[in-house]
């Protein structure tokens, strides 16, 4: 058996000693801020970021500095622990010292507009490139028309037109002259051309023609047939002449355009001489401008029906020369980017391609490509809430794909899924150099690690945030500064020393441990905000301890409807709980009910009945499937305890039934196993148990009392019932000795204990507890191997032997085995 400490029971053998109530000083640990000089939180240097998390801090530092593939970070902690805020603050601090990420732009791919070209530029150079291109186009809008309206161009253009026209006219004139010489006229019919014989310039009427000698008619007809061939050939030559003219004009236009454009392009190049990708793009722009010079000059003036002009696109026809700045830092941003995407849909993550409705069709171009969070964080860090990411369809897969391929490809899920069949783009993927930090609850990490085989490949660094920190003067001082920072960030009134002390104490209560402080800053923040509100309500400029108390009380009150109803049921004797007297086989257990963020303790009557049987303890909760596995385990341990301690020379011939009375919901956990054992021992020893005590604690097969959770809530739950009925001074709660360090009880409970109106008893072993509950010593085996007369253990063993004898007798009568069912 472990030895007790200075505050609890002093014992070399616990069963031989009585248990003393804990002094009030052990029931609550006040804050000690003596080493921290301040009047209000405004005097405190703010402390923010990753505080009290050395393990997580080192993991983050390692994860963010290691460049190897797959060493992305998964930061886990309980909800509200401020993981996201802490990580972000740390990252921003580190990122400011790193060089800025590259800019990325998309430009038109003139060879294949469906596949826009991505260009990487040094940080902050993209806007300048965009300006250069815009200035270039604006310049050309003036320069190109001026060149095309110049005297030189018009002269050369006229010469071309004239030359080609002259060729055609010559051919037609020759044909006309030839026809005239042969007395043939070329006529225009409504639908074409025809030839007719003439005489003296007039078409020969049919009657006259028919009167001609046959030879002359044949001769004329033959002449017409010959000319018809020439007419046909001449007309068939027209398209060739037209093409010749178009080609000549186009060549002139290209030559003229190349001259006009070349100067402007060279000037533009001069502004970006150090950017080879941009220089290459400007060369393609030059070629495209020459091909599409009719965008800048009136197609009619240029003469070629707008031939070669760019096809219709959304917006201005000059948009094709625009620069779509996908990623560039905002003016005030410095260093590597740290991007947090709070809504990580697929498109928010990997970018999207927008469409415009044009004449009933959805159309798009490279200017409608929009960056995603991965683009913005490229070269830096992206912070993602794991739960949000996993809840968005396709996002998790897209992130893994991007990490695997080390590039961001914009994926249009509507197109993949067949929801949309409109024309879309396939932009160049952008190389990805990024550190991904996921944050979320631990369960998500463990689930992903178990269920997703790719997970370990991509997230090799775990940053596990502690929920609590060891309580010391230093950590209290640190929490005081965090409180100061939170108050400042939220724009709250300052908090005085006592208010800060109360908040620190509440942080220990939230940790359910005197020796720990919670790091769940979200709850602390809520409390700060509410306390400041009540201070304001009381017209106080500084928040004091009473305001914090009020905030805590109001938080509880708002959530306490169920607790009050539960207490009311007990006080009205609907739920039967005795708080005075003593009963055999009946004891007050304690349980905790959790409702959302709020938990409270309530007493539950546990009863036990025994009789001879086959050595089985019947757990009624389990039989009706209201008991969970841990509860069943606790009950089964009782059998082990009995078998190991009593009637060692005979089989256990006991049948017992245990039940949580008036419990209609599920029961789990083993925190009532010691309580059940006390009830069982009472029933076997036929010795009544005190009803003014409530009991919590689990027990092992050796009879040692083990720690349980929710000790503060349990004590307070029983205290409220007793207080409502009137404290007798005999009432109290037995708790495991190991739970003493967790006590952070309410002030009224502490005060009642200090006044002797209530008591908390720390118990190490079952023998101590049974002695306290029955007023009789448990008893130790003597040298004769027997427990002392009058002891509880003796009574239990005697009863078990009696059961065994009874069973043997019944077996001799041929009726063994029955009666184990209650």
């Amino acid at each position, binding site marked *: 058996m472990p030895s007790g400490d200075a505050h609890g029971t002093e014992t070399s053998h616990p069963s031989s000693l009585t248990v003393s109530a804990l002094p009030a000083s052990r029931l609550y640990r006040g804050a000690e801020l003596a080493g921290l000089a301040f009047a209000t939180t405004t005097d405190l240097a703010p402390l923010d970021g990753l505080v009290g998390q050395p393990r997580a801090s080192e993991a983050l530092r390692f994860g963010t500095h290691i460049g190897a593939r797959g060493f992305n970070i998964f930061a886990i902690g309980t909800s509200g622990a401020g993981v996201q805020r802490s990580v972000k603050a740390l990252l921003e601090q580190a990122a400011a010292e790193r060089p800025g990420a590259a800019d990325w732009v998309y430009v038109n791919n003139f060879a294949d507009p469906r596949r826009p070209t991505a260009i990487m530029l040094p940080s902050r150079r993209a806007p300048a490139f965009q300006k250069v291109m815009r200035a270039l186009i604006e310049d050309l809008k003036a320069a190109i028309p001026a060149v095309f309206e110049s005297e030189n161009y018009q002269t050369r253009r006229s010469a071309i037109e004239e030359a080609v026209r002259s060729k055609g006219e010559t051919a037609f004139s020759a044909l006309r002259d030839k026809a005239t010489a042969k007395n043939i006229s070329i006529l225009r019919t409504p639908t074409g051309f025809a030839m007719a*014989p003439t005489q003296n310039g007039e078409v020969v009427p049919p009657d006259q023609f028919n009167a001609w000698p046959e030879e002359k008619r044949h001769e004329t007809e033959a002449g017409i047939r010959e000319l018809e061939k020439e007419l046909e050939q001449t007309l068939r030559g027209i398209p060739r002449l037209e093409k010749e003219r178009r080609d000549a004009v186009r060549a002139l236009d290209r030559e003229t355009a190349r001259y006009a454009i070349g100067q402007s392009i060279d000037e533009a190049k001069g502004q970006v001489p150090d950017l080879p990708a941009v220089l290459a793009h400007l060369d393609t722009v030059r070629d495209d401008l020459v091909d599409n010079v009719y965008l800048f000059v009136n197609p009619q003036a240029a003469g070629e029906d707008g031939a070669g002009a760019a096809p219709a696109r959304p917006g201005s026809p000059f948009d094709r020369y625009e620069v779509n700045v996908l990623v560039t830092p905002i003016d005030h941003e410095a260093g590597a980017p740290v991007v947090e995407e709070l809504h990580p849909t697929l498109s928010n993550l990997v970018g999207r391609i927008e469409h415009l409705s044009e004449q009933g069709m959805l159309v798009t171009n490279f200017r409608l490509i929009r960056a995603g969070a991965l683009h913005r964080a490229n070269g830096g860090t992206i912070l993602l809430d794991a739960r949000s990411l996993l809840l968005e369809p396709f996002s998790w897969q897209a992130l893994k794909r991007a990490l695997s391929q080390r590039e961001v490809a914009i994926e249009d899920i509507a197109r993949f899924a067949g929801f949309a069949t409109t024309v879309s783009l396939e932009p160049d993927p952008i190389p990805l150099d990024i550190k991904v930090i996921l944050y979320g609850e631990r369960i998500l990490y463990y689930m992903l690690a178990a269920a997703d085989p790719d997970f370990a490949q991509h997230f090799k660094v775990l940053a596990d945030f502690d929920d609590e920190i060891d309580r010391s003067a230093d950590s209290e001082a640190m929490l005081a500064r965090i409180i100061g920072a939170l108050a400042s960030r939220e724009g709250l009134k300052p908090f005085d020393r006592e208010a800060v002390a109360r908040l620190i104490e509440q942080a220990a209560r939230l940790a359910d441990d005197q020796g720990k402080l919670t790091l769940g800053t979200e709850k602390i923040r809520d409390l700060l905000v509410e306390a400041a509100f009540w201070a304001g309500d009381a017209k106080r400029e500084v928040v004091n301890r009473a305001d914090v108390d009020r905030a805590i009380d109001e938080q509880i009150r708002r959530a306490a409807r169920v607790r009050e109803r539960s207490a009311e049921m007990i006080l009205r004797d609907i739920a039967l709980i005795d708080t005075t007297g003593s009963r055999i086989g009946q004891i007050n257990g304690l349980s905790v009910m959790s409702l959302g963020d709020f938990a409270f303790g309530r007493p539950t009557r546990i009863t036990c009945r025994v009789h001879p049987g086959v050595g089985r303890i019947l757990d009624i909760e389990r039989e009706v499937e209201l008991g969970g596995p841990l509860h069943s385990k606790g009950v089964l341990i009782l059998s082990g305890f009995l078998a190991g301690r009593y009637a060692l020379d005979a089989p256990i011939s006991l049948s017992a039934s245990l039940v949580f009375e008036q419990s209609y919901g599920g029961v789990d956990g083993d925190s009532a196993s010691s309580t059940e054992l006390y009830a069982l021992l009472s029933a076997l020893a036929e010795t009544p148990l005190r009803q003014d005590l409530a009991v919590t604690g689990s027990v092992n097969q050796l009879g040692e009392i083990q720690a349980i959770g929710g000790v503060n809530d349990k004590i307070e739950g029983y205290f409220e019932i007793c207080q409502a009925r009137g404290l007798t001074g005999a009432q109290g709660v037995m708790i495991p000795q190991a739970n003493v360090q967790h006590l952070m009880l309410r002030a009224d409970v502490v005060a009642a204990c200090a006044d002797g109106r209530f008591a908390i008893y720390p118990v190490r072993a079952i023998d101590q507890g049974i002695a306290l509950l029955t007023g009789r010593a448990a008893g130790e085996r003597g040298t004769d191997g027997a427990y002392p007369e009058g002891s509880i253990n003796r009574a239990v063993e005697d009863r078990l032997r009696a059961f065994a004898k009874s069973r043997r007798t019944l077996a001799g009568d041929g009726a063994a085995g029955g009666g184990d069912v209650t």
Partner: protein
Amino acid sequence: MSADDVTAYRRIILDLYQSFANRRAMAQAAELARLLRLDLLGVYIEDEAVHELAGLPFARELRLPSHEWVLVDADQVAADFRHAATTAERMLAETAATLGVASVFQTMRGDPAEAIAGLLRASDIIVLTEPRTHGELLTGALAQSWRAALGAGASVLLLPPKVTRRRGPVAVLVADPEDRGLITAARIALAADETLLILLTGSDATLCEAAVRTARAIGLPQGRVRTHIVAGTSAQSIVQGLAQANERLFVLSCDMLSQEHAEIVTRIAAARGVPVLLVACPSG
């Protein structure tokens, strides 16, 4: 010639013989008729020679655009002419109605050049269309129409193959402040709410002032009359002088040109992509 003499214009005549479905020419003619408040007359001439051709046993026609030879049938020719005339009449009526102009359509039969010559008066403006294809040049009909118009003392509005601008100043080449072209151009500019750009062939301040006075007398405010000097009256000089003008119409008088009216006007229209109005010289 006084400004009132311009009102001597009575009709805009649109010869639809060569191109009966030319809605562009119809719109230009209707627009000018609206601006000058003239009657719009569309004329379609059935070429008598084509009718006679149909009676010849071997006669055949090269049909466009298929370039197939088919025998000419008299009934078919008559039907084709009727269809062309009906189409021309309907399209002209629709186009004129769009601009709020009344139109009259007339079908004639005979020799096209003679028919036009017989129809035209000095108070007419005939709208001719520069051939868009070499095929249209084949018959030499445009030249015949030119000759007919000038012979009748009528003015000619020549439309280029493609019209570049429908808004902008009305430009006029002037050598005399009483130039009939100046007055006509000023009238059109006033009606169209456009600026008048007066092109002068020399830096004669007196002529310039007188020309501006004439324009102002028509009713154009000072801010809507501009002047510009050109190098000469050749087609090249005029085109260069108009380089930055962005004009919608160019006007000049016959007496500004020494010869080859048709060639010069055709060149200007083609180079500038705007209609050119050649105002006939007073007879005698």
